[in-house]
């Protein structure tokens, strides 16, 4: 019993140890719990594939043409079909651009207004020209474009 006053008492030591062990156990559950909750936000499998939209003959030069196609999408344990709507535009039947119909403002779907020659988004009056550039309204950037290739008569876009 040397200097019991200064050294750690048995009671204090046990109390301290309880806190440490309890803390480690709590952390041992909290950290995996956090990883478990946020996990799927960062584990979406990104795959790239070329998807055929349709024939080049459908596209009239000077007018954006709407193509729809379905792609398979894996969300959690469910595989479902997701519909993609893509506007294809060409001026010369050689160079094509493919634009998503999703407004760059807040994700509503734009539609082509033929007599005004503009894309219009009904949610907040966003307006884009035939190449997808912002004409007026709140959209912060032009319509997103897909990478396009033409093989024979078929138009393909790269979906990521």
């Amino acid at each position, binding site marked *: 019993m040397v200097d019991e006053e200064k050294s750690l008492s048995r009671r204090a030591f046990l109390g301290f140890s309880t806190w440490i062990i309890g803390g480690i156990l709590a952390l041992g559950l909290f950290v*995996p719990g956090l*990883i*478990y909750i946020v996990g799927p936000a960062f584990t979406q499998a990104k795959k790239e594939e070329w998807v055929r939209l349709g024939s080049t003959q459908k596209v009239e030069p000077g007018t954006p043409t709407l193509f729809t196609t379905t792609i398979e999408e894996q969300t959690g*344990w469910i595989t479902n079909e997701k519909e993609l709507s893509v506007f294809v535009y060409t001026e010369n039947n050689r160079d094509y651009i493919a634009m998503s119909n999703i407004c760059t403002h807040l994700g509503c779907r734009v539609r082509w207004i033929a007599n005004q020659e503009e894309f219009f988004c009904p949610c907040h009056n966003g307006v884009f020209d035939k190449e997808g550039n912002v004409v007026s309204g709140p959209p912060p950037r032009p319509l997103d474009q897909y990478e396009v290739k033409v093989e024979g008569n078929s138009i393909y876009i790269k979906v990521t």
Partner: protein
Amino acid sequence: MITRISDWLDTRIGWRQVWETVFLRKVPKVNWLYTLGSASVFVAINQIVTGILLTIYYVPTPDHAYDSVQYITTQVPAGWLIRGLHHWGASAMVVLVFLHMIRVIIYGAYKFPREITWMTGVILLLIVIGFGFTGYLLPWDQKAYWATIVGTKIAGTPPIIGDTILRIVRGGEELSAITLARFFGVHVWVLPVALLVLTGIHIFLVIKIGISAVPKRGE
């Protein structure tokens, strides 16, 4: 800093008195068997935390139950760990509360004035078994399905009222989506509420009355 905050709180709500009553109370000289109740509480906390986490992905319908459990186990990061803790914790829970009860019986700790503590403990044992029974169905695999066929059949064995009990437990003639949904509801709402309330009473009484000493030879 921490001392100042705890002093500030103590002058207002007097938490130190509560702390001393709960954690620094005087107990007789006892042995390790007296830790079984605390161990049950510890595992119960584990079950609550991991159970809440499992509901983030689990879907209690025949279409999705099995697939969502597989998703948790194989796809979600640390999902295997959370499910594993809940799975093994369930078995540990049953074993611990049972041993806890055996200790109380052998030491005669259920006697006056602790009868109410004992009675709430008996109900808590039934609640834990209820948790085990309802939770067993939720993965919706072959084992879950047939175990619940058998379990609900056993519930249907009493004469006269047996068939009615079976129908109520299954929510109909057959084991179905209704059965899965009600087992889930009971497992995550009814039983947890009952467990928390009764555990509260049980622990309150343990602290209020104090625990019994190890009986001496000849007592």
